[in-house]
């Protein structure tokens, strides 16, 4: 099938991108990596009249600023595995991205595009939640900050206005001792997640007690979600036993109500949440311990 015809415009900056979006309004779509958009064009699932190519809008590399990891939205997925700045400051992202697609998808796909696409099974979105990341969004009124937890509003939906574009992803520093884990069950190697869990854990130096924990879940709702915060929060200030971890994981699962689809039933997804959350937390705590010992 051939896409419905559209015009094409290339912009060299986010200002130009916002202007172009405002000019073309509802009929325009942004083209970054194209790994999610172009299949939909090819299948005629979307029929924009204009495509605005923003690949040239930002040539910066990932870098640190004010204690945060700044990821330009156009950072390609492959960069998240190869750049020591990323793997040093957000290893959870480097781990999560290895589950994203394949080498071709990772060469072109961008983190901004992934978040904007808002796939409820998206590994990077899930990791962003667990990391407490935020996005910097540019629009006609200027820039604004949206925490990842507030970005996703529904199935393939974000709170971005039609003229807005994600420009940066910011990941706060998780001070050591820090541990992380990414767990996923998929129907086949490299496929989209049935359920994925991303865990980020910071411990108290010297005492091994958990100081902060965040868990992101993918595949359990119409969007990626943070695991039930009271359940996860109950870990703070404790050194959980295996049984306690299992209990927290069960509570996290109980707080979800996943739907069934052709790939898995809701009940099965719920089971996976309990198992993967327990494993993710256990691995993250174990990594924090190793970081402490190192």
């Amino acid at each position, binding site marked *: *099938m*051939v*896409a*419905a*015809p*559209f*015009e*094409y415009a*290339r912009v060299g900056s986010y200002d130009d991108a916002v202007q172009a979006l405002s000019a073309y309004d509802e009929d325009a779509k942004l*083209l970054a990596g*194209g*790994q999610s958009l*172009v*299949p939909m*064009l*090819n*299948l005629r699932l979307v029929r924009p009249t204009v*495509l605005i*190519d923003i*690949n040239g809008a930002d040539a910066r*590399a990932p870098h640190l600023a004010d204690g945060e990891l700044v990821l330009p939205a156009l950072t390609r997925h*492959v*960069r998240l*595995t*190869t*750049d*020591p700045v990323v*793997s040093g400051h957000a290893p959870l992202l*480097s781990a999560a991205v290895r589950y994203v*697609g*394949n*080498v*071709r*998808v990772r*060469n*072109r796909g961008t983190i901004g595009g992934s978040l904007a696409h808002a796939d409820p099974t998206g590994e990077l979105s899930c990791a962003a939640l667990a990391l407490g990341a935020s996005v910097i969004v540019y629009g006609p009124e200027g820039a604004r900050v949206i925490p990842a937890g507030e970005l996703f509003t529904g199935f393939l939906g974000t709170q971005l206005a039609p003229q807005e574009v994600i420009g940066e992803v910011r990941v706060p520093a998780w001070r050591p001792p820090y541990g992380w884990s990414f767990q996923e069950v998929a129907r086949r*190697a*490299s496929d989209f997640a049935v359920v994925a869990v991303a865990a980020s854990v910071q411990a108290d130096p010297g005492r091994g007690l958990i100081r902060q924990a965040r868990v992101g879940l993918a595949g359990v709702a119409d969007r990626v979600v943070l695991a039930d915060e009271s359940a996860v929060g109950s870990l703070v200030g404790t050194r959980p036993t295996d049984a306690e971890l299992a209990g927290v994981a069960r509570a996290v699962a109980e707080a979800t109500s996943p739907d069934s689809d052709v790939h898995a039933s809701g009940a099965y997804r719920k089971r996976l949440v309990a198992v993967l959350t327990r494993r993710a937390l256990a691995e993250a705590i174990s990594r924090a311990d190793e970081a402490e010992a190192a």
Partner: protein
Amino acid sequence: MSAEQNGSEPGRSRALVTLTVNGAEREAWVEPGDLLLDVLHDEFGLGEVRYGCGEGVCGTCTVLVDGEPVSACLMLAVQAEGHAVTTLSALSGARDELHPLQQAFLRLGGSQCGFCTPGVILTAYALAQRFEARGSEARAPEARAPEARAPEARGSGAPTRDEIRYELVGNLCRCTGYTKILDAIESYLAEGPEGSR
């Protein structure tokens, strides 16, 4: 980029783009929606770049853009302007002889129906180039831009069989069961950069 109405169809603007394919510059009139896949296959007659799914899933249409594998079905032709596009025929020598990687595939049975072969070989070739670059980087560690063929964060040495599997996970094959594909790639990597290239 200028759009010129050339009267073919109302509302469809065509532009003349220059693509660098296998080292040679080639021109084509393209509409914005024309995929790199279709321009390479239909316009330039490069039959080795093939339609398999249109979703970027199967890997059949894999080409190298600036040395890295991409799905030609997910890239607009206009996006390829200013970049180096490489298809499988670039690997054959000046007298059409087989590249050692192709020889390995032939010798070890890495191709049955052959439809996935160009995508598989290009992906393997890019992998080999990346590790060769990492090898020379280890020998001469001057600062290199991380984008350019950056290696996976791992120790040095040729990729393991499992790493090759991971690299190829997006190249679907329905005929071989992958074993002989992996054999061919391992064999090629074992020959080393000083092999008959």
